């Protein structure tokens, strides 16, 4: 065991403290960023979201989450307090998700590590009969490292299973790079930026390498050495993003560093963190086997449930997408939202066309289901005016393409908010 964790035989208590602090920091920072982005927020969508967005309820949830994370870091009933904090942050995230269209890695990575830690403690209870102490926390550490690795691998697998996503990823990476920063002519950063942005073939190679690297995350929880190598690779990538102004030194950065390096051994050189010396008996093999069997059942059942819940049953029967036929609350021709009228709504291919009109503007959206790529614009091109301004955006987890009159970005912004208000949360 000492060969498989960078933390060796040292107490995992500092790791638990770090995990609690990073989650608290990530939550507070994430909320601040989301609140800063209220200018592009969609309106409240469901009574629950409306309730959660009220300052009193949101403030109470923040205080509750911080208090639970402090107790977790302190080691007070860590399974209960850690799980409770996760639920509180999840509620906040649910309420604020409509304010941002993208999940924030700096919030999700500490969150999934906390989830993994709690799952490890739960396993410790089943296999060892304990949720605190060195043995339970040693299992929790690996469970958290595995969960972090799973989240790091997810974008790669997601891209691998979505047809046509490589092509979209190439232009996405090029646009991210070109808009990342302005470098002085002839500088190293400028040359690197130009190399990626100007050459789609090179960008395609880079995106493929990135997918391979993401999938290699499976080695992260296996061995001390693989964790060190892979974690350093992740930090190097994050450093590259940092150099291009695409991220700051955030909680995700610190979390990977916390789990990757042998901090206790480093600290011991300076006289801190003695190794653990006690030697509890090995766990009962039969109990461990039962716990493992239970964990395997959970590992099979949860993904199956997730796939079942996210699948649209009507899609199998060839019916239009769920959001087109979800009853009177779905979007209809003539509906009005934020001063925009839905002039036309019709299913089209794997998605739906919405034409939004107000006296001075007209915007046409093509919205596809989560997991689909809006690679084309099948909604009567040119319907919004000729020539048209076209682009892509996201509505929660849905992707959309749009067309509008040239130069009328303000109208697109406003129509997007109008569509998102009717769309998000009502589509299932």
């Amino acid at each position, binding site marked *: 065991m000492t060969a498989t964790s960078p933390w060796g035989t040292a107490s995992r208590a500092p790791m638990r403290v770090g995990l609690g602090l990073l989650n608290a920091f990530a939550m507070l920072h994430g909320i601040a960023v989301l609140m*800063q982005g209220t200018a592009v927020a969609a309106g409240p969508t469901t009574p629950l979201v409306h309730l959660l967005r009220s300052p009193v309820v949101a403030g109470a949830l923040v205080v509750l989450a911080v208090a639970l994370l402090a107790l977790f870091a302190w080691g007070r009933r860590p399974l209960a307090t850690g799980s409770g904090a996760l639920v509180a942050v999840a509620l906040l995230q649910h309420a604020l998700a409509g304010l941002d269209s993208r999940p924030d890695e700096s919030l999700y990575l500490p969150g999934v590590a906390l989830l993994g830690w709690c799952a490890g403690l739960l396993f410790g209870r089943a296999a060892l009969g304990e949720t605190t102490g060195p043995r339970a926390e040693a299992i929790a550490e690996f469970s958290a490292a595995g969960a972090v690795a799973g989240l790091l691998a997810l974008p790669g697998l997601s891209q691998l299973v979505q047809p046509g996503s490589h092509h979209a990823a190439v232009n996405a990476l090029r646009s991210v790079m070109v808009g990342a920063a*302005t470098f002085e002519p002839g500088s190293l950063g400028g040359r690197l930026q130009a190399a990626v942005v100007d050459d789609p073939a090179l960008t395609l190679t880079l*995106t493929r390498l990135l997918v391979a690297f993401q999938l290699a995350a499976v080695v992260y929880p296996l061995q001390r050495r693989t964790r060190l190598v892979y974690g350093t690779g992740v930090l190097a990538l994050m450093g590259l993003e940092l150099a291009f102004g695409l991220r700051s030194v955030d909680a995700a950065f610190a979390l990977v560093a916390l789990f990757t390096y042998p901090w206790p051994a480093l600290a011991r050189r300076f006289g801190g963190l003695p190794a653990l010396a006690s030697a509890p008996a090995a766990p009962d093999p039969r109990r461990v086997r039962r716990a493992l069997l239970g964990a395997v059942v959970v590992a099979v059942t949860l993904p199956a449930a*997730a796939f079942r819940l996210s699948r649209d049953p009507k899609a199998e029967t060839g019916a239009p997408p769920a959001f087109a036929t979800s009853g009177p609350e779905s979007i209809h021709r003539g509906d009005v939202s934020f001063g925009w009228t839905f002039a036309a709504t019709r299913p089209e291919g794997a998605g739906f066309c919405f034409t939004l009109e107000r006296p001075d503007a007209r915007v046409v959206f093509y919205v596809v289901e989560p997991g689909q790529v809006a690679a084309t614009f099948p909604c009567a091109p040119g319907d919004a005016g000729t020539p048209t301004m076209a682009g892509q955006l996201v509505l929660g987890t849905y992707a959309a393409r749009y067309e509008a009159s040239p130069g009328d970005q303000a109208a697109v912004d406003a129509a997007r908010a109008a569509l998102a208000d009717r769309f998000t949360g009502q589509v299932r």
Partner: protein
Amino acid sequence: MDAPAAPAVPPPSPPASLGRLPVAVGVLAFATVLLVGLGAGTFYPFGRFDFFVTGPQTQASLLVLVDAAGTAHDLDAYRSLACDGPLRELVHACPRQPDVTQVVRDDDALARLERAGTPAAGGEPVQLVRRRWRVTDLPGPPPHDDCQICRCRAER
């Protein structure tokens, strides 16, 4: 003759007594998060982070300073800066992409502009613009247009 005393063997540490069990739990956690995330999509704390695939990712924009020679510079390239007009209103009048990242970056840029000191004497004339790119499938630098925001005087 007394037998030599056996060397004291330190007891195994608590984690050592668990064998490969933690690694097995770690691999199970990896597989579970990976597959649940793939099935559930974005649902805290699961997230596919696949906005590179489905996001608004054929356009980009950035606030830059263009000098008299037409070369674009980062806002940090100048030590001090003085611009004409109400900066925030002027910047917001130049449309950006409707996503929160752009809002935050705009706010950061504005804070940097507002923090910059005033040039001591004169300074060189520059133009604050929102440069907007539209990435196509064609190789080469993507085409861009500039939304003019205001004129400034700046000093390196």
